[in-house]
């Protein structure tokens, strides 16, 4: 029976796997003879669930799931302030906007790490190691710089009607965690992060 579950459940998160007992007990709660076996029901359930999931993730767009109230900085914002904003808002990345509100770049934690000597693996622990080995502050190399120095430019942006599925593909292909959603003129409308996609497709209403 478990072999059966594994075969039919492929492609679904393990938490969604139904046990035969679940179906059997549910069938017992419905009075009257159900002209279907638990195995048939499970197959219908898996196929229907997969279909619904596909439909939902296809129809949702970046504009529908994006975070609208986004912290942002300008190219001439000092990095000390950029870091403070990111810390205060609890985000790991911010878009960089010019005077017209157009997205000119993105800064993430990774960009800080990259310019602070953590060249090899670009993660926080590399930085900790560097910090523990030297006496000075590892942030010194970028102390006097501003956003324009370390931002990734041009930023990866999508339009509001980009399907969520496509956004997810961009995340995976480019190994990034957020994209800016911009209108046709390039002005910022919001941000879609990996978290937004998880929230939108988990079925739990925020």
């Amino acid at each position, binding site marked *: 029976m478990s072999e059966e579950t594994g075969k039919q459940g492929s492609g679904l998160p393990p938490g969604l796997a139904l046990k035969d007992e679940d179906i059997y007990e549910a069938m017992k709660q419905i009075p009257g003879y159900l*002209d279907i076996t638990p195995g048939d029901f499970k197959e219908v359930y898996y196929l229907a669930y997969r279909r619904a999931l596909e439909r939902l993730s296809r129809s949702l767009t970046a504009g529908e799931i994006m975070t609208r109230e986004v912290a942002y900085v300008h190219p001439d914002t000092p990095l000390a302030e950029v870091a403070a904003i990111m810390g205060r808002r609890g985000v790991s990345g911010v878009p960089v906007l010019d005077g017209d509100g157009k997205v000119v770049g993105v800064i993430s934690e990774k960009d800080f790490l990259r310019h602070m000597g953590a060249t090899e693996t670009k993660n926080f622990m590399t930085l900790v190691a560097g910090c523990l080995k030297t006496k000075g502050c590892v942030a010194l190399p970028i102390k006097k710089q501003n956003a324009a120095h370390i931002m990734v430019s041009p930023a990866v942006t999508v339009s509001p009607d980009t399907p969520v599925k496509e956004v997810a593909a961009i995340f995976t292909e480019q190994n990034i965690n957020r994209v800016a959603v911009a209108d046709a003129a390039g002005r910022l409308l919001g941000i879609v992060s990996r978290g937004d996609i998880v929230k939108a497709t988990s079925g739990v209403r925020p």
Partner: protein
Amino acid sequence: MMGGYFRKMAGTTQSPPRVGLTEMLWSWLGSFLGVGAVAYLNYGWVESTDLVLLIGSLGASAVLIYGAIKSPLAQPRNLLGGHIISALIGVTAFKLLAPNLWLASALAVATSILVMHATKTLHPPGGATALIAILGGPKIHHLGYLYAVVPVAAGVVIMLLVALIVNNISASRRYPEFWF
């Protein structure tokens, strides 16, 4: 490769749960009244004429329309369509192929299933209805295509009326799920 073929014969799942006692009793009452109505008319009245009203396949229909009332196979579209279509096919097979009765029987049932599938009226007792057109004896043979009207359509309509009345009395039962 052959291993997979034989493994399929072991089955993969379990039998559905047993229904409750009230469900059993409602099924009993429905089929008693349904078959009772048709049989009463048959033996008390119709039998003395050239006609018949009670045929074996109605007993099979009773299992579905009183005992498995949620089943797609038990819905009015299937009940009426399956019986009448199969009756016409059965009579046709007999007319065309008698006295080659083995071929008439096989062709009648197989074709009935195919046409019931194609018309979304699959109703297992229809297979019996087609067969009865061939093995039902001289009285049935003499009816010709009338067989599809009396006993088949008439008997089925009476059974359907009883199903509509009895299956909707209990709060936990309803019939049909759909009409056509």
